[in-house]
């Protein structure tokens, strides 16, 4: 078991190295001098930066400097905001994105499992049709439209009541998080609902559920002990990629709801061509996702005995 965990971690580190390398060479390919744009930095900073990143050195040396900085956990200094380290930026903005993401994942997983199970149990009846209609809409309507519509609804709602029930935008309290997290999780929720539905249908018609019925096990116990646990397994396997989709999908929601998360900051950095921030954020997100996927895989091993014992 521990050997397996160690192996996965090593694999993860190699993957992060690959992401860092790809990021470096992609950014290196950017046309023009990174230090020569309209927000030109002062001559002193310029010399400092050149020295620090070896920008006057050949690309191999630059790559080496970059990697050794990374290993030290140093993403460098922002190009556009003086004396601001990328690490500080991540430290400040990532928790906001993370809270939003975690909340969205919880919404998506809970909703997906619940609605998926419901549709399977009420197969070809009204609740099934109704939920599946919503699911198809959730899959087909772009997140920015849903975000805009929910904002519109909030405005109308607040106007109708004459007080702020839920804030329309911004960040701060739990109330600020609810609607954006829901919007962010909606697409994934729809996807997980579909998955859970088909997996649950398979389980409902399975031989072992029939066996449980033949034993006289009451329906509620069959649902919890036999159906749910088996039907959730495929959902858990895709949870890792889902977390990836949700965290990187946060841009739109952060933009529309004016949430000061890392996603919004990244878009800003791209518009300002703030190279170190772009590279740092990309590598950081990449590493975060790689280890989330590993974590979910290990978690899966604890739930499915077949996988647990093989390792």
């Amino acid at each position, binding site marked *: 078991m521990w050997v397996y965990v160690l192996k996965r971690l090593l694999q993860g580190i190699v993957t992060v190295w690959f992401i860092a390398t790809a990021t470096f060479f992609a950014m290196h390919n950017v046309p023009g001098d990174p230090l020569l744009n309209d927000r030109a930095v002062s001559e002193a900073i310029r010399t400092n930066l050149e020295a620090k990143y070896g920008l006057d050195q050949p690309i191999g040396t630059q790559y080496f400097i970059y990697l050794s900085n990374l290993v030290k956990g140093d993403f460098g200094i922002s190009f556009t905001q003086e004396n601001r380290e990328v690490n500080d930026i991540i430290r400040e903005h990532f928790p906001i994105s993370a809270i939003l993401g975690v909340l969205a994942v919880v919404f998506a997983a809970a909703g997906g499992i619940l609605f998926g199970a419901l549709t399977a149990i009420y197969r070809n009846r009204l609740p099934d049709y109704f939920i599946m209609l919503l699911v198809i809409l959730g899959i087909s309507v772009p997140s920015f439209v849903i975000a805009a519509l929910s904002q519109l609804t909030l405005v109308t709602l607040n106007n109708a009541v004459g007080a702020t029930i839920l804030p329309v935008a911004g960040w701060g309290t739990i109330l600020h998080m609810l609607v954006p997290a829901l919007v962010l999780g909606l697409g994934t929720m729809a996807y997980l609902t579909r998955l859970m539905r088909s997996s649950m249908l398979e389980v409902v018609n399975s031989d072992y559920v029939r*066996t449980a*019925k*033949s*034993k*006289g*096990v009451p329906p509620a*116990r069959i649902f919890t002990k036999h159906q749910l646990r*088996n039907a959730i397994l495929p959902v858990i396997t895709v949870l890792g990629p889902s977390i990836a989709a949700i965290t990187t999908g946060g841009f739109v929601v952060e933009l529309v709801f004016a949430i000061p998360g890392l996603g919004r900051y990244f878009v800003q950095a791209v518009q300002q061509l703030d190279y170190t921030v772009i590279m740092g954020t990309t590598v950081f997100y990449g590493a975060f996702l790689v280890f989330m996927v590993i974590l979910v895989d290990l978690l899966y091993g604890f739930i499915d*005995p077949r996988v647990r*014992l093989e390792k």
Partner: protein
Amino acid sequence: MNDIKKTDEPTPALLEVKDLAVEFDTYGGVVKAVRGVDFKVEQGKTLAIVGESGCGKSVTVQSIMGLIPMPPGRITSGTALLRGREALARDTIDGKKIRGAEIGMIFQDPMTSLNPTMTIGDQIAEPLQVHKGHSYRRAFDEAIRLLELSKIPEAGKRAKQYPFEFSGGMLQRAMIAMAISCKPSILIADEPTTALDVTIQAQILDLMQDMQQETGMAIVLITHDLGVVARMADEVAVMYAGKIVEHGAVRDIFYRSAHPYTLGLKEAMPTNDPNKQRELKPIEGSPPDLFSAPAGCGYCARCPFAMQICDTRYPDGFFVEKQHSSCCWLHHKDSTRRPEELYFKGNDL
């Protein structure tokens, strides 16, 4: 029905099924899977229900247990009386006391019939917790004892394992342990050996017989294997196209087959008598389409003894002897052909 007169019996049978009919809605239309089935199960005896795939034998027992998915399934008529009490597919409190407690059931494929994410011990302990209100600890200890009883070595360790760590034969033993955990009066075995190796088959059948002797339960055995029938059964019901076509003691069925279909089954089975040389003969054609059930005898098109009437009217049952009935026009008093033709041909096998 009016031709069959039930013999007077002092006590009600353990399980009595009357006029059971089951339909399924499918995309192609309504399938009449079971079309009026009657049988009885006596205390401590084994009833074998025999027939080819799709004849409705599994549906019959599953509908008694309330395992038919509804919809698309539908029980259109019939009753099942357990010791005189109505028991058919009732999802009432009463029904739950019957399932698992009064009637245990084992299935064809033990590999898929056990929950893959639950330990064997937990699964055997479950009916004890549900029906007898045992604590988890006590039920689990009882489960280990049941596994030992089913001749599973190292039962204590095995009980903590998952189904994928068991072999097929072992799983079927565990299934039996689970089915009899609450000491049911009837064990329904739905093709219990079909998915197993021949060598394992015999062991499982032995185990079932041992359990029967120990607990005095009745067994309803669903199978298409006449060898298994000969070994296990006291009574046999032969099913064809959703109906029981012949019913009687195992000797009568084997040595005085009174229905051409039973004879056909026998012809298709190898004999172990070295003095007799013959070729195995398959039954030509296929069973009738149950989307539109035939008016007459369903076997008519494949029957070498078919007569004009067979195509238009169903023979509702004639007693050949006491306790031996056959649904075939050959036994009608006006029939031009005599049932002796059947016996004569049967003796040849």
